[in-house]
């Protein structure tokens, strides 16, 4: 049924005599205008939904010669288009409204301390559209007046400093492409399969180009204590005033305070006007609405370093400061909750990333991990950034299990669920980087499984 409906652009056999003679007469008389075309489309869909294989309908004279969307010029080919700047900011086509950020029901009971996941199942390349960047807040999001925003640096520094946005945007600026993944991405899947699609299994993930000032620039300006200052605390300006401890070694390497994201200012949900960018490190440390940095000689044990974002190990100990996001990959299409429209050729596509450096290789299996094939890595392959992979596949209609497995430039190979659970059990909540499996049924329907 739906498999017929879902193949636009193909020459479909018309179900027999679903058009009444009067309609055919009208078409002959008035031509195949928009009213009649719309009617035809509707009844054709209805009819093809009701019938399966049917012989060529004599009634459908025009489609028999080819695709009506070719034979009959569509309105966009025969009308004047809209003027410039009719949508001064711009927005996606109205046909794209299915791909939006979504909450997962039951995960949180209040939407200000919740997650909205990125629709990875329909996205391309390595940059996440800013409007689809996932959201995770603990106490709601704010829209801060940038002219009243301040960044303070204090603690083990010669001179505690204050910067306005005017100041920060005058300083030497860098632009870097990096991935951002919540430490709790894939958390629901630790024990067993729990959610249907890649939006919910992996959608606390994004890739963006960030523009801002290196933290090393600011810390030097404040004259920080290089010897004793082994830790940095970052703190937000929102109600939660989220705090996280960062290792100074990481901070001086490549962390920045960013105001820009993908060519424009950060979106409010992502920390406008200023956030921390901590490449390779879990998302919770990328403090949003950043107001303060403090240099210290010991970690802080903040709420989100003890009660939350600590990984419970099988021996009952909680692992603190598991900071680096290890190598992980996932096939984004075809993926759970999708259905292949037909047998034949497909471009299987997905994302790979590692907090320790660059992606070296991605392998894909179509038989649940028995045999593997190296995928094509799209350029650019950047450190601590999403890497897009693609691989050709001809689906012969038989059941299959699709998996991807990343290898990073340290030689680390993404683990299976069994390997990961052997060390970390199933109650860790955070840092699930196991190989994801998608089962393809004979019907073409894809579902989430663990192998």
């Amino acid at each position, binding site marked *: 049924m739906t498999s017929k409906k879902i193949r636009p652009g193909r020459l479909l056999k018309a179900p027999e005599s679903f058009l009444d003679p009067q309609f055919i007469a009208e078409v002959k008389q008035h031509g195949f205008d928009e009213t009649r075309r719309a009617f035809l489309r509707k009844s054709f869909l209805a009819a093809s939904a009701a019938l399966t294989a049917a012989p060529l309908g004599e009634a459908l004279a025009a489609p028999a010669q080819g695709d009506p969307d070719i034979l009959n010029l569509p309105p966009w080919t025969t009308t004047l288009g809209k003027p410039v700047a009719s949508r001064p900011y711009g927005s996606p086509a109205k046909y794209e409204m299915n791909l939006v950020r979504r909450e997962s029901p039951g995960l949180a009971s209040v939407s200000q301390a919740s997650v909205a996941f990125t629709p990875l199942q329909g996205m391309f390349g390595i940059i996440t559209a800013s409007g689809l960047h996932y959201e995770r807040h603990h106490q709601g999001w704010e829209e801060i007046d940038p002219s009243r925003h301040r960044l303070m640096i204090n603690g083990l520094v010669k001179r505690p400093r204050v910067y306005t946005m005017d100041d920060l945007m005058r300083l030497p600026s860098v632009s870097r492409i990096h991935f951002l993944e919540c430490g709790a991405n894939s958390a629901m899947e630790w024990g067993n399969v729990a959610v249907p699609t890649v939006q919910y299994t992996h959608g606390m993930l994004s890739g963006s180009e960030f523009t801002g000032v290196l933290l090393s620039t600011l810390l030097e300006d404040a004259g920080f204590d290089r010897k004793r200052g082994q830790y940095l605390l970052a703190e937000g300006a929102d109600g939660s005033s989220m705090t996280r401890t960062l290792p100074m070694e990481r901070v001086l390497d490549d962390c920045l305070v960013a105001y820009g994201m993908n060519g424009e200012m950060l979106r409010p949900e992502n920390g406008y006007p200023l956030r921390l960018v901590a490449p390779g490190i879990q998302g919770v440390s990328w403090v949003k609405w950043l107001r303060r940095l403090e240099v210290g000689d010991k970690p802080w044990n903040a709420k989100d370093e003890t009660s939350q974002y600590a990984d419970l190990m099988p021996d009952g100990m909680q692992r603190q400061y598991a900071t680096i996001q290890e190598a992980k990959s996932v096939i984004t299409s075809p993926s759970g909750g999708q259905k292949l429209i037909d047998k034949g050729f497909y471009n299987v596509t997905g994302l790979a990333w590692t907090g320790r450096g660059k992606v070296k290789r991605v392998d894909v299996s179509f038989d649940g991990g028995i045999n593997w094939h190296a995928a094509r890595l799209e350029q650019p392959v950047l450190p601590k950034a999403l890497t897009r992979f693609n691989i050709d596949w001809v689906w012969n209609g038989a059941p299959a299990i699709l998996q991807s497995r990343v290898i990073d430039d340290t030689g680390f190979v993404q683990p299976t669920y069994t390997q990961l659970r052997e060390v970390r059990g199933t109650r860790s909540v955070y840092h699930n980087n196991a190989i994801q499996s998608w089962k393809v049924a004979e019907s073409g329907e894809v579902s989430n499984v*663990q*192998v």
Partner: protein
Amino acid sequence: MRLPIVFGCFAAAVTLTAQADYAGVGRDATPAEVAAWDIDVRPDFLGLPPGSGSVEDGEELWIEKCSSCHGDFGDANHVFPPLIGNTTTEDIETGHVASLKKGGAVRTTIAKVSTVSTLWDFINRAMPWNAPKSLSTDQVYAILAYLLNLAEIVPNDYVLSNENIAEVQQRMPNRNGMTRDHGMWTIDGKPDTHNTACMKNCKKEATILSSLPDYARGANGDLSKQNREYGPVRGVPTPEPGAAAPAAAATDDKTPGPPTAILAANGCTGCHGMDQKVVGPAFSHVAEKYHGQADIVSRLSGRIRNGGSGSWGSIPMPPQPQLTDAEIQTIVEWLAAGAKH
């Protein structure tokens, strides 16, 4: 944490040119500015302001400011996993919470947190959730004393202060329950797992360990509406559990859906659940209570605009002057039609 400011303005200006030469960019923070923002408290109590508060005062404050979300005994589960519970006197002795190892029990905050400074710091910076930073220093001590008393860490007549908080640390049930022994803090740390990149005949067969139960297929909504309607794949239609056939619902049902955007943008959902009381009543309960009443529209419009208390309890609903009349009308029409969601 605070450091004495050793440089005056003049000295700072000299250092600036000598050091980085970002002339005219940024300035030194004043001591008052640093004091206003530097609120963090470390495990060694660096940054903890002097003050005190009793269990008794804490109980009163808790009922007034915290219990609506966290329950009278810190045990409520509806806004967040409970704060208190699942620790024992034995845990207080050992500093290891046995229920974490054993599993099966809800992981409460007091079971997980290893340092009492964490609780002081967090309550002071972020709670109450809908009015962060509204507590005085002594109120934070008092509320924390009450929570510690609920967990049987301090006795009923305890007065917690900056003087004795270090003793309390020695009784935190999970004080020895944290480890930093792992390879995920440094970039070149040792990983836990050691998979190999085998390419051919890596195993005999692929065994499925877990798959999505049928009842969960629609739990995240209709997946056909979460994918493009063209391209190599389509979303699988998955009616939500209990939902009527989609076609019938679409044609017959004119009941308005929830004005989600307005409710979210104005913080209503912070205090009202769809089916759950949070601070205020669940929207479905409001709809039920006034169902069919002639003055429902005028009554609720007025209440949303002006706030007030007494219909559901003593906690007041704050006034909402920012809402437009049209927004209020949308909300009230939705409530009057049964608050369908």
